[in-house]
C-alpha cells in the first residue's frame, strides 16, 4: 500500500527541476568534511544546490523544518542480490557477459525495504560461476528498470575459489583480454612489409562479448568486485593478477568474509579496497573478540561495509551493527565513510553520491538522532530530492 502511495506521489509531483526544497536548522553530517551543528541544505532538480551554516533558504522554496533532525548521506549498499528475480544466473562456468541488470525484477516489493533502511544506492551482483558477469548499480526507486539503473555495466563480478580450475579459468579470461588490448594497440595497417608467411594484418578484432568487460577491467575502466570467503582466496586472486601486473590501473574490491583480517598486513601494504559485513568475530579456537573491520582500517586498507544479508532485520539493524564496530575500536569517521562515500567510490559513483556536497545527487536521510545510535529512527529518505520514505 505504502509503495502505491509513494508511486502516486511521484507521479503527481510537479515537473522536475523547478521545485526548490530547503531543509533548515538541521544538523548536517556531510561525511568527508566537518559536521555542521545547524545549517540549511538546498535541493533543486534532484541535486544538492548548496549547504552550510550560513546558507539562507531561497525565496519560494518549500521549507522542511530540520530542527532536531540529522542530515546524513543515503547509504550505499555495494553488494546485494536484492530485487533480482531468482538465484539462477549463468549457471557454472565463466560468463562475464551476463548482466545482473537483466535479472532485476522491478515489480518485486523489496526496494522499499532498502529505502526504509536508508539505502539509496546499491550494487547488484550477478549470480553464477567464478566469472559470474557484470553487476549493475541502481537507486532503489521501484518503477521501471530504466528509472532505477545508474550503470548497467558497473562492475565485473568474480566469485573467487582456491582451486586450479578457478585460477586457470581467470587466467585464460584475462589472457584473452590482454591479447585483445594488444591487438587494439597495433596499427591496423602494417608499416613495414609483412614478414614471410605471416598472416595478413587483420583489422583490429573487436573483443567478443565475453572479453569486452575483462578488457574494461584491465584498462581500469571498470572495477571488479571479487568475493573472497577466506583470507587465502585473497592471496590466490592476487597471484592470478600478478601475471597482468602491466595493467597498473585495475581496480579490485575484495568483498571479504569474516577472516579477512588475518591478511590485514598484506591488505594494508597494498592499500586494498575491502568490503566487509559489520560483524565481530573471534580469534580461531578462542573466545577472544576480533574487530576485523577495525584491524583492516588500521592496516591502511580502504574499508567499506556491507549489510549482513538482505533480510529486513539485517538492513534495519545495519546502522546499529556499524555502531557496535565503533564501540569496539573502529574510528567513527572511518565507519561513517565506510557506509557512504567509500562504497560509492568502490562503485565509481563518488562524484555523484556518498556525501552531502553541493552538486551531488540529493540522496539523503533525515534522522532523529545520531546515525549510529540504537535509538535513532530514519524519519525521511530522499532520492534525487524526492521523498521515497517518510515516517514524519
Amino acid at each position, binding site marked *: 500500500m505504502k509503495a502505491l502511495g509513494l508511486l502516486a506521489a511521484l507521479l503527481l509531483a510537479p515537473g522536475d527541476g523547478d521545485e526548490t526544497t530547503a531543509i533548515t536548522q538541521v544538523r548536517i553530517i556531510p561525511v568527508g568534511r566537518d559536521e555542521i551543528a545547524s545549517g540549511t541544505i538546498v535541493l533543486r532538480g534532484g541535486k544538492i544546490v548548496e549547504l552550510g551554516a550560513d546558507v539562507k533558504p531561497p525565496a519560494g522554496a518549500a521549507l522542511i523544518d530540520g530542527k532536531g533532525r540529522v542530515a546524513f548521506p543515503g547509504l550505499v549498499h555495494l553488494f546485494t542480490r536484492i530485487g533480482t528475480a531468482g538465484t539462477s544466473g549463468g549457471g557454472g562456468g565463466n560468463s562475464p557477459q551476463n548482466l545482473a541488470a537483466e535479472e532485476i525484477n522491478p515489480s518485486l516489493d523489496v526496494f522499499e525495504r532498502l529505502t526504509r533502511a536508508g539505502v539509496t544506492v546499491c550494487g547488484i551482483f550477478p549470480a553464477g560461476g567464478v566469472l559470474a558477469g557484470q553487476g549493475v548499480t541502481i537507486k532503489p526507486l521501484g518503477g521501471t528498470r530504466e528509472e532505477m539503473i545508474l550503470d548497467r555495466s558497473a562492475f565485473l563480478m568474480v566469485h573467487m*575459489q*582456491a*582451486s*586450479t*580450475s*578457478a*585460477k*586457470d579459468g581467470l587466467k585464460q579470461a584475462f589472457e584473452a583480454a590482454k591479447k585483445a588490448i594488444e591487438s587494439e594497440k597495433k596499427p591496423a595497417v602494417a608499416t613495414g612489409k609483412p614478414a614471410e608467411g605471416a598472416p595478413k594484418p587483420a583489422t583490429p578484432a573487436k573483443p567478443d562479448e565475453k572479453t569486452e568487460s575483462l578488457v574494461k577491467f584491465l584498462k581500469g575502466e571498470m572495477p571488479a568486485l571479487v568475493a573472497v570467503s*577466506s*583470507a*587465502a*582466496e585473497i*592471496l*590466490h586472486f592476487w*597471484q592470478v593478477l600478478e601475471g597482468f601486473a602491466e595493467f597498473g590501473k585495475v581496480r579490485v574490491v575484495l568483498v571479504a568474509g569474516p*577472516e579477512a583480517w*588475518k*591478511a590485514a*598486513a*598484506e591488505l594494508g601494504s597494498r592499500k586494498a579496497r575491502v568490503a566487509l559485513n559489520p560483524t565481530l568475530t573471534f*580469534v*580461531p*579456537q*578462542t573466545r*577472544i573478540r576480533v574487530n576485523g573491520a577495525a584491524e583492516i582500517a588500521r592496516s591502511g586498507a580502504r574499508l567499506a561495509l556491507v549489510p549482513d544479508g538482505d533480510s529486513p532485520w539485517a538492513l534495519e539493524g545495519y546502522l546499529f551493527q556499524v555502531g557496535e564496530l565503533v564501540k569496539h575500536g573502529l574510528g567513527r569517521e572511518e565507519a561513517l565513510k565506510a557506509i557512504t562515500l567509500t562504497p560509492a567510490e568502490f562503485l565509481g559513483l563518488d562524484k555523484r553520491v556518498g556525501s552531502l556536497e553541493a552538486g551531488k545527487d540529493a540522496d539523503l536521510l533525515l534522522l532523529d538522532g545520531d546515525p549510529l545510535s540504537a535509538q535513532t529512527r530514519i524519519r525521511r529518505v530522499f532520492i534525487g530530492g524526492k521523498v521515497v520514505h517518510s515516517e514524519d
Partner: protein
Amino acid sequence: MKLAIAVVLLGLQEPPKKEEAKAPAAKPPVYTALVGGDVHTISRGVLRGATVLLKDQKIHRVGQALDLPEGTITIDVTGKRVLPGFVAVQAQGLALASGAGGKVSDSLDPFQEQVKIALACGITSAFIEMGGSGGFFGGGTPSAGSNAVVKMSYGALEGMTLLEPAAHSLQTWVSGGAADRHEIRQSFVKARDLVERERDFERRRAENKLKPNEQPVRAADPFARLLKGELIARISAPDADAIRRALELVNEFRFRCVLMDVVEGWTLPDEIGRARAYVVVTVRNKQHADRRMARPSGSSIEQAAILRKAGVKFAISPITPAVTTGGIAGRDLTGLPIEAAFAVRGGLDEAAALEAITLTAAEICGVDARVGSIEEGKDADLVVLDGDPLDYRTFVDLTFVNGKLLYEKSKSSYFNHLKGKGR
C-alpha cells in the same frame, strides 16, 4: 635469480665497487642473527654457543665467531637449541583450503590455524596430498590425487610450495592384483624406452647431429620421471611380504622409492639397504608377532636402530600424521620429536633420531637441497627450542620460515601460559 646472475656477471667485468654503486634500487638485505645457542646443524654436528646469521630468506653464515654486518637484528638464544625446522613426510588436512581437484599449490590456505599450530610444534615443511583416496588406514601414500611439499609459511602464499608433484604412488603394485602389477610393469618398460630415446635425442642435439625438423622426445609421464630420479615412488608396505614385493620392483627398474608405514622392516634390513629404498618408520606402531609363522614378525621398537645399522635411510612419522589439538602428546604431528625419542629408546643414537625428522625427511620429500639442515645457502627455516630436542618437556620458543619469524611462544594463545614447570 636472473638479476643475481646478471650482477655476478657484471662483477666479473668491472671492479666490485662500481658494481655496488650500480644497484641502488635493490632493497638492502635484512640480516638476522640467532646468537649463542647450541646449533644442531644435522649435517655437521652440534656447534656450541654458535651464531646462525640469516640474510633475507637464506642461511648466510654459521659459526662460533662471526662478524655481524651493521644493522643485523640480533636475537639472543643463549642456552637454547637451534635446529632446522622439522619436516613431516606425511601430513593430513594441513594447509589446504579445499579438497578440490587440480594442483595443491592452487588450493593452499596459508592462514589455516593448523599451519600456526604446526609452527608452534616446530614443523616448517610437510608433504601433503589432495583429492586421492587414502593409503594404509586411510592415510599415508598418495593414490591418483595430487601432492606437494609445502612450507608452513603462515600468511604468505609466495614461497609456500617447495615441490609439486613430489611423489608418485605405486600402491597398486602391493595392494592390487596381477593385472595392476602387469600394468605398472608395462608402464615402466615403456617409460624406460622413452627415457632412453630422450637421452639419445639430447646427446645428438649436443653433438649437433639432429635430423632436420626432428621432433624432440620428452619423457614426462610419472614413470619416466621416476626413472630419471625426478620423482620418488611411495608404497605403503607394512609387512615383510609387501616390503619384498616392493623391493622386487625397485630392483628391477632402479628408481627412488620410499616404503611407508613399515612395521617389519627390522626383519629384512639388508634387503632394503641393498635396494637403496627409503623407509618411513612409525616407532610406536605396535603389532604382535604372528606365532603361526617361523620367520620373525610384528613390530619392534628397535626397528629404526636396526635400519640405521644396515645403512637404510629413514624418516620418522607419528601414528596420526595430522595436526590436531586433541591427541595425546606425541601421537600426532604436534609431538614429532617425541616419536623420534622413542626410536632412541629402541637403541637409535640421538643425532640419527633428529636426522630422521629433518634432513632425511627432507631427502625423502625431494627438498633436501633447500631444507633439513643448517647450512650456508639453505632456506632459513629454523626452530629455537628451550631444551633438549628429544626431551618431552621441551617447548618450541621461536620458529622461522623463509627467514621470517612466524611463531613466538611468548605471544602464542596456545602455549604462552605453559611455563614448563616440569623442570
